[in-house]
């Protein structure tokens, strides 16, 4: 799986705004609100990867969270991206 578009991000203080760019991205007129974890996930999805690889990378990055907590957050965000048509599975 991989992001369908490149994203431009803007730091909004307590959250991060991400907007897709590219010729076809204008079809998605919305934006994503990201927290630190989802911003990290978005970064990992720039290159072709798998849910398992992303999960492992996040477990290494956030040792204070349990693998389950990270797994739930990852699943939620991947589902959001899929529903918005922003992720090629």
């Amino acid at each position, binding site marked *: 799986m991989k992001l369908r578009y490149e994203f*431009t991000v803007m730091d909004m203080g307590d959250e991060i705004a991400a*907007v897709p*760019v590219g010729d076809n*991205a*204008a079809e998605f*007129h*919305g*934006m994503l*609100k990201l927290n630190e974890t989802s911003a990290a996930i978005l970064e990992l999805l720039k290159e072709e990867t798998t849910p398992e690889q992303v999960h492992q990378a996040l477990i290494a990055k956030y040792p204070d969270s349990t693998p389950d907590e990270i797994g739930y957050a990852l699943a939620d965000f991947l589902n959001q991206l899929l529903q918005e048509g922003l992720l090629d599975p």
Partner: protein
Amino acid sequence: MDFTIFLAGVSIGIHSIYDEVYTLCKKYLRDDATEDFSVFITQQDIRYEAEKSIREALYEGNPVTLYSDSYLETLAVYRKIAVGLLQYHTYLMHGSVVSVDGQAYLFTAPSGVGKTTHTRLWLEHIPGAEIVNGDKPLLQVRADGVYACGTPWAGKEGMNRNCTVPLRAICILQRGLKNQIEEVSFQQIYPVILQQTYRPAQPEAMKKTMELISEMSGSVRFYRMSCNMEPEAAWIAYQEMREHYD
């Protein structure tokens, strides 16, 4: 056709295939030959606009309209101008701008909410109210604040004036039975601002756009308003937004 226009204080050379864009730009023509940047249009640019308009209509569930090449060329020209103007700290936002006593107010909302109706209420009922642009104004971020700049690209009604006015407020409109307005923070409404801002396809240009929005947010006030179509809507909006500057 080859001609030069002056938008947001920038001289732009236009090299078009058809005359329609020249006719559109008549109020903004400039005689001297010095150009800050130029825009060249090819048949490929026109095809891109045709395909894009069909794609977007399908995406939004609207009927597909086939436009003339000369009209599509006007869109292609503005798209290129919008990207070119980013280097002059200027970006394009979808909305309607009205000025009163040398201060500009921008109303934005998804299509169909009633920007044009609300704009007309201001023009008809607020003494001294004048249109800046009814649909696609340019916003220029300067050291002393943000300025709304007129452009000939102004939507179906074509309401526009060749002028530059300090922008005091951006107001997000929604329909309501009663008229209510509240001041909000940029953080509360930035998703709408991003949604209504022209998004260039090039990543670098999009990054610059985001930077300009961020700079703009520091010197403009933001409001959210529920409004009906009565003249009172314009008065309530005007009273609330202007009182901070008296």
